[in-house]
């Protein structure tokens, strides 16, 4: 049976206590996207400044548990300064790591996710891998990433 230390790794607690890129951006020009976790009432707002195919700035507000907040914090640090294509690859790779359940529901093969995980460096984000052992918490970890994906779509159509 997985223990708490599998879930609450030190780096996760660090991002929870000291969240990176916390705050707001003027929208417009930034994209503002809200995400909700209907299970626990967590809310997140992602602000995204995209120009010339690059994610120039990311800010996060909202409230949530340590898993959703640290995942959002790590995400903001990981995608800031990346190209939109790199950010999308990161989203796919992260969701691949989390999506033991989700991707199967959506009919994507595990091979594609495994390949992405090899190609994209997740770095600190791999600390969140333990969340997969706590299925109820997967949605906490993926909330900010789904919201980011919406923001990138919104920026593309703006």
């Amino acid at each position, binding site marked *: 049976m997985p223990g*708490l230390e599998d879930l609450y790794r030190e780096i996760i607690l660090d991002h929870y206590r000291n969240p990176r890129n916390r705050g707001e951006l003027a929208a417009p020009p930034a994209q503002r996207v809200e995400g909700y976790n209907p299970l*626990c009432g967590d809310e997140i707002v992602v602000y995204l400044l995209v120009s010339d195919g690059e994610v120039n700035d990311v800010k996060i507000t909202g409230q949530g548990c340590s898993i959703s*907040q640290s995942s959002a914090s790590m995400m903001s640090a990981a995608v800031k300064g990346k190209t939109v294509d790199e950010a999308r690859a990161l989203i796919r790779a992260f969701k691949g790591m989390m999506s033991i359940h989700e991707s199967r529901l959506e009919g994507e093969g595990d091979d594609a996710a495994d390949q992405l995980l090899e190609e994209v460096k997740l770095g600190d984000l791999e600390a969140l891998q333990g969340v997969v052992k706590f299925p109820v918490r997967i949605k906490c970890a993926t909330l900010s990433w789904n919201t980011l994906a919406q923001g990138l779509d919104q920026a593309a159509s703006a």
Partner: protein
Amino acid sequence: MAMTPATLDVAAIKKDFPILDVEVHGGRLVYLDSASSSQKPQHVLDVMNEVYETTYANVHRGVYAIAEEATARMEAARAKVARFIGAPAPRELIFGKNVTEMINLVAHSWGRRNLHEGDVVLLTMMEHHANIVPWLMLREERGIELRWLDFDDDYQLDLSDLEQKLDGVKLVGLSAMSNVLGTLNPVRQIADAAHASGALVLVDAAQYVPHNATNVMELGVDFFGFTGHKLLGPTGVGCLWARAELLEAMPPFLGGGEMITDVRIDGFEPTELPWKFEAGTPPIAEIIGLGAAVDYLEHLGMDRVREHERELTAYALRTLTERHGDGIVIQGPKDPGDRGGVISFSYRGIHPHDVSQVLDERGICVRASHHCAKPLMRRLGVGATCRASIYVYNDAADIDALSDALAYTGEFFLGNTER
């Protein structure tokens, strides 16, 4: 079960619930989530098994011995549950799947016949989604107006302007006991005021019936919904009581077998109460199981159940505030006499999901969420809370385990200062 007249013998009761022997993470199970769903005594499990092993057949159909026996036992359970809530006649008690379905039944069947554009439904700010969303759906469909009764600083409904609020109201929908705050609402007082201004009253009693001696006639209400799985019975049985003349004037809800006297290719005739509202094969063994749960509770005595829970709630409120001080914020009435054994709290700013996750390591089951009451959570200004809720099988040791584990949770996330 030996017991003194005033209290329950919880040590003996615990032995009646096999699940309480289960080990979780190497320790004993501390179940504090009965407001979500209660555990089941061996007696209920045995009765349901015995039905399947000896008399199971579909009801109201077969002309053979076991079908007649199954029918008789299901209808005997209906009579038992009706008597348990003080209903004058078993035919006024409708079975469905859960209390959510029963409130939807009222909204569809009574609501669509009686509510028109501009008519008002008055709800409270402490309703469960089950008593909000069906009315929001009717608002979208019919253009009815929803109005809201707020509550005060001690989490009691604010009735100071009830008469004005009732102006133009056709139906008042209220929870008899809040599933988040634990508040016991003054149902009789509100029902009298509603009737005086010509409104009917629907009560969501999902949290009330399992914990209080209930008499629908004394409460003076019109529609009264509750659910079996929170009162030691199996899942899959919701109950609606309403006065026969109301039910008779209402069109059926779901259509199908069982609920008709005649079907032609150009029409149908609904059958009599209660089956008019019970389309399709009902959960037969589960209804009989609910009857067994009622037997078990009546054996304990509902007055003693209430007294036990009032005492244990008082102990919990005292223990948690004395030990954790400002670190714990409890959302609910302060006086245990005004509330049931549902204790919603926030602990030292730690997210309820995280609190619940660490409590789980100690085998403690609490609910961490918005408790299907998002308008209430917004009103309280929180996204979610932890909720510990008690029943007949809980004792002071369970509360002590919760209190100790909260201190451990604080150390885990915030370091080893007690406050």
